[in-house]
């Protein structure tokens, strides 16, 4: 009887506790997916990197405006065309209390770049370091990166890599590093509840972070929890219910609801994913530049952005983000001009129009149908065909013959460098070149830019390439959307970054 009473009282007390009761200094993030693996070298997922970046720091980092700063490095400079030097901060501790030195940095980069260096596995992130050949130790706090050939974009790819502890990895090995963490980041791992949540707590020995990204110091909150909520409606519901303080990938249609809620707000930043329609340049009708130009002029980008995207995108006249290195400010604007588009179709011999298929994914159905409707006004009668992303891509394999016409697509480049988006999509036979576009002059500009150590000259090569592409119009350039987050109004000290990495070093709840 007594035991039953205790049971009932405890049950009632527990049930009466409000769900919003929580430790005072905990930030909860409603996140789209779980980390694949906690080993910084053993994944190729931006979502995973977003989690890892709270527990591991790197040689370089980006701030919320996407500027590059030394992080674990005190300074970073280029010694010659193929050699870079990083002087490391002294006294930086791993979570186990051991000091980070040049040995750990060399170990990290050897692990990233050498074949089978991860206990028989090769890092899938190896190619993100380009022609990095060797990492050498100059002294206890200085490392040098030696490249096989000049690759001026090398510093921009360093924020993608995080430093691991040599002694720790040698002890736990690659298998262990998949689920255990010993980084230099502002938070250390408490528990990884697979598929459910990742719980981190403040690392009291944190060195403070990049001096160029204030405030410098320890993390402001005791704990950070990444709660995995894959469904966007459920994620929004969790935010509205106060069960999380921040969510990523807030859908456009839910923005008003979050804005109206007295406890929540919407945060936005320009993203790094350019949207465009791939046109099959290898067969009619889009093998004709006049038709490609007509397609580009038939789209009222501003109307679609305003009506279907809540105004949250920037129209593009090329493939690069306006924040990208080498962005050409002087590209001719792709104005909405139906008359000129119709005239171009007539000149191309398509006065009666042409029937084409526009491949698209389900999440972009509305936008694709709006685009198809606009294209049809100039005689490009596009029928939208919805498919699963990877099934569509099987019909658009670069370097292989393609029978399709148009594909609503996108490409992300967190490095904000043409090497990561312009070259893969528009160089002849490049891995992302699904349009079949080939222009040897453009290729030559890319080759020159790839090896050019002078940044201004490099930028000029890319600008020239953009001028040519603006005439050829191999793609139907569309827009660069903003990344949208929902947050509690109590959340301060955090701004979204275009790369989509949620790092909570400076965040706190008021």
């Amino acid at each position, binding site marked *: 009887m007594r035991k039953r009473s205790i049971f009932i009282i405890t049950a009632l007390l*527990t049930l009466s506790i409000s769900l919003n009761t929580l430790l005072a200094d905990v930030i909860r993030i409603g996140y789209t997916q779980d980390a694949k693996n906690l080993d910084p070298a053993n994944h190729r997922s931006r979502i995973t990197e977003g989690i890892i970046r709270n527990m591991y720091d790197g040689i370089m980092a980006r701030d919320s405006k996407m500027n590059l700063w030394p992080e674990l490095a005190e300074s970073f400079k280029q010694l010659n065309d193929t050699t870079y030097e990083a002087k490391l901060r002294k006294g930086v501790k791993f979570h186990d209390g051991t000091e980070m030195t040049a040995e750990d940095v060399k170990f990290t980069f050897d692990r990233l770049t050498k074949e089978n260096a991860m206990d028989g596995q090769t890092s899938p992130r190896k190619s993100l370091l380009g022609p990095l050949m060797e990492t050498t130790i100059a002294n206890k706090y200085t490392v040098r990166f030696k490249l096989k050939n000049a690759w001026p974009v090398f510093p921009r790819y360093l924020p993608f890599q995080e430093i691991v502890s040599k002694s720790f990895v040698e002890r736990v090995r690659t298998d262990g590093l998949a689920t255990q963490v010993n980084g230099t980041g502002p938070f250390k791992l408490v528990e990884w509840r697979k598929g459910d*949540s990742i719980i981190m707590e403040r690392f009291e020995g944190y060195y403070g972070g990049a001096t160029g990204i204030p405030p410098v110091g320890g993390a402001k909150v005791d704990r950070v929890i990444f709660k995995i909520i894959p469904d966007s409606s459920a994620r929004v519901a969790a935010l509205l219910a106060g069960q999380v303080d921040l969510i990523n990938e807030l859908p456009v249609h839910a923005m008003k609801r979050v804005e109206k809620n007295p406890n929540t707000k919407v945060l936005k930043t320009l993203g790094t994913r350019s949207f465009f329609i791939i046109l099959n340049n290898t067969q009619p009708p889009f093998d004709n530049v006049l038709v490609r130009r007509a397609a580009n002029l038939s789209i009222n980008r501003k109307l679609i952005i305003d009506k279907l995207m809540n105004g949250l995108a920037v129209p593009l006249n090329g493939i690069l983000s306006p924040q990208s290195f080498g962005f050409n400010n002087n590209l001719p604007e792709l104005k909405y001009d139906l008359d000129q588009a119709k005239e171009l179709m007539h000149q191309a011999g398509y006065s009666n129009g042409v029937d084409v298929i526009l491949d698209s994914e389900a999440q972009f159905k509305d936008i694709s149908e709006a685009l198809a409707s606009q294209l049809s006004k100039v005689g490009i009668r596009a029928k939208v065909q919805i498919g699963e992303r990877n099934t569509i*891509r099987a019909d658009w*394999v670069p370097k292989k013959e393609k029978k399709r016409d148009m594909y609503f697509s996108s490409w992300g480049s967190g490095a904000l460098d043409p090497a990561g988006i312009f070259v893969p999509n528009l160089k002849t036979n490049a891995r992302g070149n699904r349009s079949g576009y080939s222009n040897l002059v453009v290729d030559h500009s890319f080759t020159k830019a790839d090896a050019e150590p002078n940044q201004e000259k490099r930028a000029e090569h890319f600008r020239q390439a953009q001028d040519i592409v603006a005439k050829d119009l191999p793609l139907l350039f569309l827009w660069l959307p903003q990344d949208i987050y929902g947050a509690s109004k109590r959340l301060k000290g955090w701004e979204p970054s275009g790369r989509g990495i949620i790092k909570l070093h400076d965040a706190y709840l008021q």
Partner: protein
Amino acid sequence: MKFSKILERFLQLIPVLLGISLIVFFMIELTPGDPVEIMLGDEISTPEQEASLRHEMGLDQPVHFRYYRFISNALVLEFGQSFYHRRPVIDLITERLPATIELTIVAMFIAIFTAVPLGVIAAIKKNSFIDKIATVGALFGVSMPAFWFGLILIMFFSVQFNLLPVSGRITYDLEVPNKTYLLLIDTLILFRLDSFFDALKHILMPALTLGLAMGAVLMRVTRTSMLEVMSQDYIVFAESKGLKRFRIICWHALKNALIPTVTVAALETGSLLGGNMIVETIFGWPGLGRLVVEAIFDRNYPIIQTAVLLYATTYVLMNFIADVLYTFLNPRVSL
């Protein structure tokens, strides 16, 4: 029951599983999509990196060789490494399986303990108000999509009234005891009542969403079966003997009426274990279904192949259990 019969049924599993593994393996291989390209995504890569990854994933081998290697490894419970997690498949599956099993058990519990009594009452009081409510409720239960109902529950219980959590298995600041890996049982065994009730709050909505659809089916089956049994001669005889109504229903009628219900419940459990991907996604439930959905989109072959083998085995086993239960409930029937 003869041991030889049981052994015979188990041996029948082998060709069934082989056949299923063959079909699934080749179907996945034929599905468009390149796992290497998917993994590398955007950003830069090199042909050497692609070749290296393809080799590590074993995708540079002929497909028949890959199948042979998959089957021979599966016989020793070695299922390879996930392409994307870069960890053993068996680890990933065993991490997620308890959550799915727990959700299935609770959903079954809700389904059986609401559907069976309701089905019995609906049958006894045929055409009454209760019968009509039960019938309409069953129609609602089978017609309503799980993703819609789940979201409605979330909007009502989480957003509107803040009573239940939207996602997960347990609140982050509560320790997770791991004995059986079934949280409700582990927390009770260790008498951690706060954790028990917290875990109960988390599982309630997903289990209700899953259990409702199954309960609707079970209710209809129970009602139909009960109506048939109640019209049998032996029931009339029992009534004429003067036995109490309650005894007739529970002792004489229900045992026979439950035969089809038990069979359906066993089969439904088999499908639930494999088919709750939608509910797990909506509620962020960290189960196997969600892992498999992600694996399908990523073309993560090792996980898909292993999970399908597991689902097939489970389904066949549940069929077998249903047959065994049937022989207990109806001794006239043998295996």
